[in-house]
């Protein structure tokens, strides 16, 4: 029964947390955003003392049920391990192995040192929630988005607005690569040995393992009932039951309750008493057919994660028509090529101009979202879980490729800009690395400022009137001034009021100059409130 409750809760958490990374509409976050916020490392980095205390107390009471229920990476490993155990001759495949204490603590110390030294990206490689978020965002989210786009395609033809299409694009090659490696490593470890990763590498597992030794409720042996069949150890994915000695390594036990159900003698019970209660149902509960199945209670769950591995395609449907018309009609923007006529010159009707893709400009200081308070503060809090990247509806956030900021999000404006009505990233951030009180606060935070680059500006290069940057500036920080100060009627060029600019990137994104915009936002080390 306890095991079934554990499985039900674990699946609930697992599915919902996964959906948090997939649901780009942000609807789910309103209801289940807390599930990300009770993850251990984000809570620590957010200095969320309440949650940390809760998890500590939870572990002191019940053992590491955090690892069995709340941690999505743990549940993922259980799923992989369960499938592995479904194979023939792999039913009772685990054996007891002594704890690799030195390895656990070396990794833990290194992890803490890295975090304190500001090498959060290094820590994020092994932090469980970060690793899971990275895998879902990089590998599963594109599939989800394509599935959604298929529905949107159908909806469009059915004249329904129930679904809308989203762009799927390669956000960061390095993060994708790391996600693939993470997935392969986690999958292999879980497939072969269950919870190896949790009990040797995972820093959260190591830390909670200390606490769970002293937990009130634990699975405990009743040596008088044990017949030494070792079924418990052979079904312990944590490999923490030493059946010969009747001992359980509680620092590694994740309180999955598998042993309770596998013991046909009822020799193991989850209790706070040192000795198993003699009064408690002595009758052997194991019906014969219950044995070989091992974990028959687990419902088969489709691990869509395993279907990942497809590289995210950069191509979006939007570019296709441009490609098509590119063929012959318009070689270059603004250059009209007529038909193959002799001396004839004409502007023909119709067709679409080619739109060159924007490219990322050089920024001396990277841009991080309003609410991050500054680059350093942001990097110390961020766990690189990719949740903000997954929900950013404007395609602004993407994992960074820089060494010190690896996988932590940064902003760029080639595909969209930080829209004034949106605070999605701050709403979802479980580590409080991005924190906004409200929408008003966002529009008053300066994360950078725009810089005009004259040699790219169409007013200079094409000699046309423009002013698209000024027209779209949400804070009116761009003023149009005549190119020739002595001629009030000459074309106007933008001038940026650095004191008012908030760095949202509307100007940069909507600048007609391609591939490089003529107005570019430069990040600030420390954000300030205007």
């Amino acid at each position, binding site marked *: 029964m306890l095991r079934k409750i554990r499985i039900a809760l674990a699946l609930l958490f697992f599915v919902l947390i996964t959906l948090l990374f997939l649901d780009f509409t942000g609807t789910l976050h309103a209801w289940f955003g807390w599930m990300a916020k009770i993850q251990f490392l984000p809570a620590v980095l957010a200095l969320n003392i309440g949650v940390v205390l809760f998890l500590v107390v939870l572990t002191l009471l019940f053992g590491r049920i955090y690892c069995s229920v709340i941690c999505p990476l743990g549940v993922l490993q259980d799923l992989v391990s369960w499938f592995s155990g479904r194979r023939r001759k792999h039913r009772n495949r685990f054996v007891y192995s002594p704890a690799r204490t030195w390895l656990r603590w070396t990794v833990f110390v290194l992890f803490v040192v890295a975090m304190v030294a500001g090498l959060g990206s290094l820590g994020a490689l092994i932090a469980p929630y970060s690793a899971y978020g990275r895998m879902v965002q990089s590998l599963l989210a594109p599939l989800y988005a394509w599935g959604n786009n298929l529905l949107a395609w159908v909806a*469009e033809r059915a004249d329904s*607005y129930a679904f*809308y*299409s989203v762009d799927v694009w390669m956000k960061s090659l390095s993060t994708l690569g790391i996600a693939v490696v993470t997935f392969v490593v986690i999958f292999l470890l879980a497939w072969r040995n269950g919870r190896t990763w949790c009990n040797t590498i995972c820093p959260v597992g190591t830390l909670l393992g200390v606490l769970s030794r002293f937990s009130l409720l634990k699975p405990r042996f009743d040596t008088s009932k044990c017949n030494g069949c070792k079924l418990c150890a052979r079904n312990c994915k944590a490999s923490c039951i030493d059946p010969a000695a009747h001992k359980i390594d509680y620092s590694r036990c994740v309180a999955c309750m598998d042993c309770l159900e596998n013991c046909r003698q009822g020799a193991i019970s989850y209790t706070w008493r040192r000795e198993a209660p003699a009064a408690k149902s002595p009758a052997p509960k194991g019906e014969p057919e219950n044995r070989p199945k091992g974990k028959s209670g687990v419902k088969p769950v489709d691990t869509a994660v395993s279907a990942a591995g497809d590289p995210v395609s950069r191509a979006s449907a*939007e570019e296709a*028509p*441009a*490609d*098509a*018309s590119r*063929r*012959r*009609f*318009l070689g270059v*923007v*603004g250059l*009209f090529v*007529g*038909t*193959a*006529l*002799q*001396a*004839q*010159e*004409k*502007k*023909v*009707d*119709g*067709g*679409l*101009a*080619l*739109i060159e893709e924007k490219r990322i400009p050089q920024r001396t200081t990277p841009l991080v979202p309003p609410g991050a308070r500054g680059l350093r503060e942001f990097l110390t809090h961020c766990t690189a879980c990719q949740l903000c990247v997954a929900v950013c509806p404007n395609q602004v956030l993407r994992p960074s490729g820089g060494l010190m900021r690896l996988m932590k999000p940064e902003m760029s404006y080639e595909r969209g800009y930080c*829209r*004034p*009505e949106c605070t999605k990233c701050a709403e979802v951030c479980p580590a409080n690395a991005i924190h906004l009180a409200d929408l008003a606060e966002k529009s008053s935070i300066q994360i950078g400022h725009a810089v005009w680059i004259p040699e790219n500006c*169409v007013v200079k290069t*094409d000699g*046309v*009137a*423009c*002013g*698209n940057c000024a*027209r*779209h500036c949400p804070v009116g920080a761009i003023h149009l001034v005549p190119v020739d100060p002595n001629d009030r009627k000459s074309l106007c060029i933008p001038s940026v009021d650095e004191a008012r600019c908030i760095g949202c990137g509307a100007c940069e994104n*909507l600048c*007609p100059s391609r591939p490089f915009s003529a107005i570019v936002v430069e990040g600030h080390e420390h954000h300030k409130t205007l």
Partner: protein
Amino acid sequence: MEKKKIDRREFLKTLGLGAAATTAALYGCSPKGAATASAPAGEVPTDRMTYRTSSATGDRVSLLGYGCMRWPLLDSPASDGNPIDQQTVNELVDYALAHGVNYFDTAPVYLQGFSERSTGIALKRHPRESYFIATKMSNFSNFSRENSLAMYRQSFKELQVDYIDYYLLHSLGGKGLESFNQRFIDNGVLEFLQREREAGRIRNLGWSFHGSTELFDHLMAMHDSGEARWDFVQIQMNYVDWRHASGRNVNAEYLYGELEKRNIPAIIMEPLLGGRLSRLNDFLVGRLKERRPTQSTASWAFRFAGTYPGVLTVLSGMTYMEHLQDNIRTYSPLEELTPEELELLEDTAQVMLKFPTIPCTECQYCMPCPYGLNIPAIFAHYNKCVNEGNVPKDSQDPNYRKARRAFLIGYDRSVPRLRQASHCIGCNQCVSHCPQSIKIPQQLHRIDRYVEQLKQDKL
């Protein structure tokens, strides 16, 4: 089922072709068509087209003329850059000719410059005397004599003909009298074309008009004084433009009246206002359907244009077979509007003017926008939302949420983000190309501001 097959075979025999015909038409045309077998939309007659006779040459022209500006397009252009779906064009042309349509109107600039070629290919498959062909002198950007004459001669090659039935000075009025003189008088092109008419290579000489009253009067005076002879004039006429012309267009009532006085045949363009008169709002559609439940909204606009006896032919850019069939039905034969029906259409026009749609006819003259925008698609989406009531005026509107979603999601569906109004820089290069005198950048900026309000939920 067996019966249907027999019907089809018989029909094909009588028609002699029919690769083009759709099943709907097949059932409809079968002589044995029992009530159950007839097409839901009614039959498409082959021999009842209304014809008008030209006062200039005695040409017997079908009241429905085929506008070749909106041929169906391929998903991606062919290797020579031709975007037109030639196979479907052939089918449409065959069907049109088989049902009595004999006037085809094209121009060198239509469809990225490929319309003449496609139209020529399709028509070449039929006897030259079975159709009239109209094309134009589109010397907008370079009006030197050499360039203009080269354009004229190229039309013969593209259309594969040795004479042109109707030749038009394309879109007079855009920039007034001065531009007319530059394009056709100063360089002697009009003189040249009149001589070509004498030589028989042009059978009718006329012009299409998008301009001001002054220019129109000037051109009429030229005709009166004998300085030029206009065999026909092509004007924009529909029940909205009749008395409520927008932009620099002149009320069709005046234009038609002047032509009728001089017995100059009028050829009608934009009878549907670029399709806008086939997409009315629910209230207006309902009123028309009440009177004629089985007839399309578009049929009213065609009947309007056809009701005036001085009209030689009414051009329609029919992209789809169903449009062609519907229009053929409307004019086979024409049922003239009653005075009461005319009044209803005038009222329809007045109600329409209260809805702030943008008078874009999707003619594509403004395209390609050098900054990549899809201008007609943006306007089409906006107009569609206006007609469907999805342009909320206030966030307190009862259907605000639904309308907002429909507007924004529909916007992304109809126009890729990079081609939306937010990218209009206001360079104004499009403005001079618009025959409806829409202030395109202002309208785009207005739509963009509205989209921003919707997105920010600050309506």
